[in-house]
């Protein structure tokens, strides 16, 4: 068995999943690939199976965070040492997985977050932009590190971290953000960033910016306050 598991959450990605799997497999032959099919209503699951990936079919759509956590559980149960998370819509370039691995080794990190070179490829409203700025500032103040792309779904995690996040309430169902980075920092895990190239979304929708601004700001404020108030739990 390979020590690396690449987890690709996919919800109705029949258009892109075959290409993503082909590229990922070709560039990283030493890693196993798991597609977590988050209750797709199209042929995502069948296409992924045909491409030779392991496929975990979640019976219903539980959302991005829930799908990723399912992958973490799979990796924990099956004894993998490292997990790479990647989107199923060809946004992330699998060439950069190597960068993430090198960064992890060089920095002796537990989590490496792939941060995009290009800013402003997403259209974000002013309220949300202020929210994102504010939360990044809080995270920087708390962790001492500047995270430029906290919602990035392109990450490398060590076993210590993904087995911790695979436990019941340690990972949000909706969208992980700076709150997870802060929670990991509190657990004394070392979280760093590494630059990766991301292409602009070919289909225009994003898995990671699905929340409405007012709700987003309230949701994230609450999450951050809770991280700060809750004690360290093991």
């Amino acid at each position, binding site marked *: 068995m390979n020590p690396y598991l690449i987890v690709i959450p996919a919800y109705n990605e029949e258009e892109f999943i075959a290409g993503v799997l082909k590229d990922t497999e070709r560039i990283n032959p030493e890693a196993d690939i798991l597609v977590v099919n988050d209750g797709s209503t199209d042929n995502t699951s069948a296409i992924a199976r045909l491409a030779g990936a392991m496929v975990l079919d979640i*019976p*219903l759509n539980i959302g991005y965070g829930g799908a990723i956590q399912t992958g973490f559980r799979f990796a924990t149960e099956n004894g993998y040492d490292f997990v790479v998370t990647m989107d199923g819509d060809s946004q992330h370039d699998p060439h950069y997985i190597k960068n993430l691995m090198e960064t992890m080794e060089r920095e002796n990190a537990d989590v490496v977050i792939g941060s995009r070179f290009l800013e402003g490829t997403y259209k974000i409203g002013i309220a949300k932009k202020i929210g994102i700025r504010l939360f990044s500032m809080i995270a920087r103040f708390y962790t001492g590190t500047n995270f430029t792309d906290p919602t990035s779904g392109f990450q490398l995690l060590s076993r210590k971290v993904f087995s911790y996040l695979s436990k019941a309430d340690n990972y949000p169902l909706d969208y992980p953000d700076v709150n997870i980075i802060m929670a990991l920092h509190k657990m004394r895990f070392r979280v760093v960033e590494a630059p990766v190239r991301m292409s602009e979304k070919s289909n225009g929708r994003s898995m990671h910016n699905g929340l409405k601004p007012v709700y987003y700001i*309230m*949701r994230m404020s*609450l*999450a951050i306050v*809770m991280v700060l*108030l809750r004690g360290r739990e093991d």
Partner: protein
Amino acid sequence: MGFSVRLFILVMGFLVFMIIFELVRKRRFREELSLIWLVIGVGLIFSSFADRIIDPLAFKLGIKYPPALIFLIVFFLLTLTTLYFSIVLSDLKSKNKELIQKIALLEYRVNKLGQAEGRTGSINSGNRDL
């Protein structure tokens, strides 16, 4: 509104807010669902000053007894909250039903596979199962 009444409502509002907040902190209540209740808690705290707006508004609307307007607003808000939780509940119910059905189908398949395995097993190694 008298000072003591104002203080009473303010304290009650804070109490409700703190109870909800503690439930979330102790993970007894999911963060995603608690937001609507925290908003109501904040609303309760501010309602101790609501008469400044409610009284003129009630008279403008032709309501002779201003507290009736408060009841009306609270009634609407609570209706909306219950509606929200009914939606969450009905979503959970249909998901639960689907999960149960899928488990039944899976169980059937697992049993069938188990039986097939048992048969080949007994051929290969005599009466292992008995």
